[in-house]
């Protein structure tokens, strides 16, 4: 709705207000890797491409592009007449090919400490330049062929290169401006230039930020919200629902703990809905390299975890619905995920990756199966007789900074112990540090069973299979006994390597799917859920927004309108079904082209 205070004469100014508690630390999009900051750059800077609401690549600053045979050289033809403007709306310069070169140069310069540099190393000599082995940037695989022609040369064949372009590291920057601002680039609203849908009108960290529509934007017809107001509130989680009800904000996430209240109240119920899932996937990792304290018997765990039946018993015993109830009490099934790679990630001609043959079975069956669990338990107990002591102590830490996780851990503990019996396992829930959890717990392997998550970086299944390969920092499945193949590598590793080598998309995806299915069927990990922000009350229609798992796409306001009233969950579900169908059609159509 329009602002009620609106004394703007037209009364037609569309404003969207929200409170947030996660502050952004910089506007320097070339440096950041944080979601909150992506959300900012998504709306003020445009990259070469964008997506439509079904996740199909669309031209943005690049009007057209082409790649060579093996996908190593990509050429982009830029849109002309796109302007850099300052925060007060003054035109500063045109956006040209060199701006992309300058951007990448900045990112790959190690001293700038860009957090997304590792993605940009996909270009030729990117890594070498970053590590200082090459000092001449012209040897790096990016080139302004002319003012409006840009060419990337890549290190390896990369069919999914386009999906990477929506990352901030491939965003343009005006070199002159950047040089002028130096260190202070991106520290204030004046110290950045804008070429996106919005311009920052106010930027006061820990207070308020205001985005206003960019009048010089090349695609301003598709920008419908005129002003976006973010008010900082550290206790947003506590006060936002009330603020929404009082009409002080247009969007508020509704914490799980109060969701009952909203659903029990007719009036409120009409205003709250599920939010979209994101592409983070959650899974329980069984650690093959336990390094925890002797009191929790890491050796015993090691013996147990190397027994497939033991793993399988856990795999089938985990009641994921009951665990999910702690975060999503109303539609827990909607959040569950039977694979590591979530659905809607990539597809082969409209067939979703998770429905590919090797994964299909896994995807479509619930892993929770009491009978199987008990069956495997029996087997494991006989096999492990004399080798392992029962009950097996299972150290399951959680991050004490996350109340939901804490709750979930208690639920899972109780559920598993009840089902499998206290004679079999003894789950020990332990609070880990709220900051430095990764460093303190996951990376050093101080756990037996751990809820972990992972998010993708580019449109290739490799993005999801990598964490479990050698050098990964998860549960080290390569150390599992009995899976080493003749080349000395683990079976899983070999499967992934093979997939990566395959350039034909259909075959490639098939191979990746096989690897993933192997990982799950061997119960090295127990897939659990996809990420999501739970319930929200919002006057936005999520299906109008651009859609894609990669980069900053999901954060764009472009194309969205502020609704008169928030969607209810029924409306949402309806819209979701419609959208999924339309998307499948659109993907199939796009695939045919």
């Amino acid at each position, binding site marked *: 709705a329009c602002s009620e205070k609106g004394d703007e004469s037209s009364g037609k100014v569309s404003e969207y207000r929200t409170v947030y508690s996660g502050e952004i630390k910089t506007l320097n999009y070339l440096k950041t890797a944080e979601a909150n900051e992506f959300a900012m750059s998504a709306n003020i800077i445009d990259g070469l491409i964008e997506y439509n609401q079904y996740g199909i690549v669309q031209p943005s600053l690049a009007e057209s592009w082409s790649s060579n045979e093996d996908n190593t050289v990509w050429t982009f033809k830029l849109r002309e007449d796109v302007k850099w403007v300052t925060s007060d709306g003054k035109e500063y310069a045109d956006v040209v090919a060199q701006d992309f070169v300058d951007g990448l140069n900045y990112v790959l310069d190690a001293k700038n400490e860009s957090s997304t540099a590792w993605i940009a190393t996909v270009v030729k000599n990117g890594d070498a330049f970053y590590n200082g082995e090459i000092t001449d940037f012209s040897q790096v695989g990016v080139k302004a062929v002319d003012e409006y022609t840009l060419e990337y040369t890549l290190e390896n064949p990369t069919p999914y290169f386009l999906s990477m372009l929506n990352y901030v590291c491939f965003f343009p920057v005006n070199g002159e401006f950047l040089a002028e601002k130096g260190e202070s680039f991106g520290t204030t609203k004046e110290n950045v230039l804008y070429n996106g849908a919005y311009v920052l009108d106010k930027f006061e960290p820990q207070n308020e930020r205001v985005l206003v529509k960019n009048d010089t934007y090349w695609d301003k017809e598709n920008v419908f919200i005129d002003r976006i107001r973010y008010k900082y509130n550290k206790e947003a989680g506590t006060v936002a629902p009330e603020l929404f009800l009082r009409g002080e904000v247009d969007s508020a996430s509704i914490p799980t*703990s109060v969701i009952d209240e909203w659903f029990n109240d007719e009036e409120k119920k009409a205003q709250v809905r599920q939010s979209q899932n994101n592409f983070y996937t959650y899974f329980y990792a069984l650690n093959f390299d336990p390094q925890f304290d002797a009191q929790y018997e890491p050796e015993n765990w090691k013996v147990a975890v190397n027994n497939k039946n033991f793993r399988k018993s856990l795999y089938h015993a985990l009641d994921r619905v009951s665990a999910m109830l702690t975060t999503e009490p109303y539609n827990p099934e909607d959040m569950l995920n039977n694979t590591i790679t979530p659905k809607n990630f990539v597809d082969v001609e409209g067939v979703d990756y998770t429905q590919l043959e090797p994964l299909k079975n896994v995807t479509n069956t619930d892993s929770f199966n009491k009978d199987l669990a008990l069956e495997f338990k029996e087997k494991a107990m006989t096999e492990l007789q004399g080798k392992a002591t029962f009950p097996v102590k299972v150290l399951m830490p959680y991050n004490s900074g996350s109340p939901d996780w804490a709750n979930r851990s208690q639920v899972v503990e109780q559920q598993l112990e009840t089902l499998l019996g206290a004679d079999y396992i003894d789950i020990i829930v332990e609070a880990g540090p709220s900051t430095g959890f990764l460093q303190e717990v996951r990376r050093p392997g101080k756990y037996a069973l751990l809820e972990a998550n992972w998010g993708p970086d580019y449109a290739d299944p490799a993005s999801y299979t990598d964490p479990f390969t050698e050098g990964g920092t998860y549960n080290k499945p390569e150390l599992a006994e009995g899976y080493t193949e003749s080349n000395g590598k683990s079976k899983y590793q070999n499967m992934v390597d093979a997939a990566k080598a395959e350039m034909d998309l259909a075959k490639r995806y098939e191979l990746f799917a096989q690897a993933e299915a192997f990982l799950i069927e061997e119960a090295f990990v127990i897939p659990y859920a996809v990420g999501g922000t739970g319930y929200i009350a919002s006057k936005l229609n999520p299906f109008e927004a651009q859609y894609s798992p990669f980069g900053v796409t999901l954060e764009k306001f472009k194309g969205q309108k502020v609704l008169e009233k928030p969607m209810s969950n029924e409306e949402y579900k309806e819209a979701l079904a419609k959208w999924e169908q339309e998307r499948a059609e659109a993907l199939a159509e796009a695939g045919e082209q």
Partner: protein
Amino acid sequence: MGLYSEEITNISEKSNEKLFEFAVVDEKKAEETGYSNYSYWRSTWKSFLKNRLAVFLLILVCTIVAFVIIQPYLPYQKSPTEIYIDEQTSSQARNIAPNSEFWFGTNSIGQDLWSRIWAGTRTSLFIGFVVALVEVIVGITIGALWGFSRKLETPITQAYNIVENIPTTIVLILMSYILRPSISTIIIAMCITGWVEMARFIRNQIVILRDREYNLASKCLGTPSYRIILKNLLPYLISVIMLRMSLAIPFAIGAEVFLTYIGLGLPISEPSLGNLINEGRVLMMSPDLRYQLIFPSIVLSIITISFYIIGNAFADAADPKNHV
């Protein structure tokens, strides 16, 4: 002068010859007449008893402490950590309003609030007592040295100025990094920062007392310093120390709430008033669920207010001026 003469005339008649003999004076008896049966502690206690409210609260607190200890062994008690499953939906018995089954209702994952609150009270009181005790012991030791030893005075004062001005939050957060969140961490963190005020307080008191003549007298008799502190100074401080201690308990509980608020509190699996309240804060905005905040808040307030009032009443009672 007319005032006096009247009396004289009518007295002489009453007087009896026999009485006008000298009485035998017993010197020993004379010595004893001045004995007053005033006892400091008895008087303190009596004067404390006069404060009805404080006495009531003292009984209340004792009852709560006793109850909190025996509560788990009473019949019909539920486990504070078990997640209860709703028979009908066979999912967690979430957010159930107080009823005959769950006396204080359940929380958002189906744990029994009644038992959680008492378990939390147990934890918080334990933390409070331990912190108060450590603070008092460390505070007294350092404060006594600080106030009594002239040699140590300057170094301790300097150290105090430094410690006092290092923001507590830094220390607290560092502690939580070095140690895992747990009861002992929270106790250590609070003790590390808490003794300072106590030490300064004791020191100020001792400075007031140390030059009193009776201490000088002890010095003249060659009494070693530790005994002077122990026998001459601390007995005078016992009332203020007890006051401090009773105030330290509500303070420690409040600090625990704050620590939990900034994310350094106890893990949720370890119920305490701090995390119950923090969990409950979010529910503030939902009238139906507010009970989850209100119950622990009430228990917490009763405890802190009681200790506060008891402490003050005791301090008043311990002041000889008020032994009226």
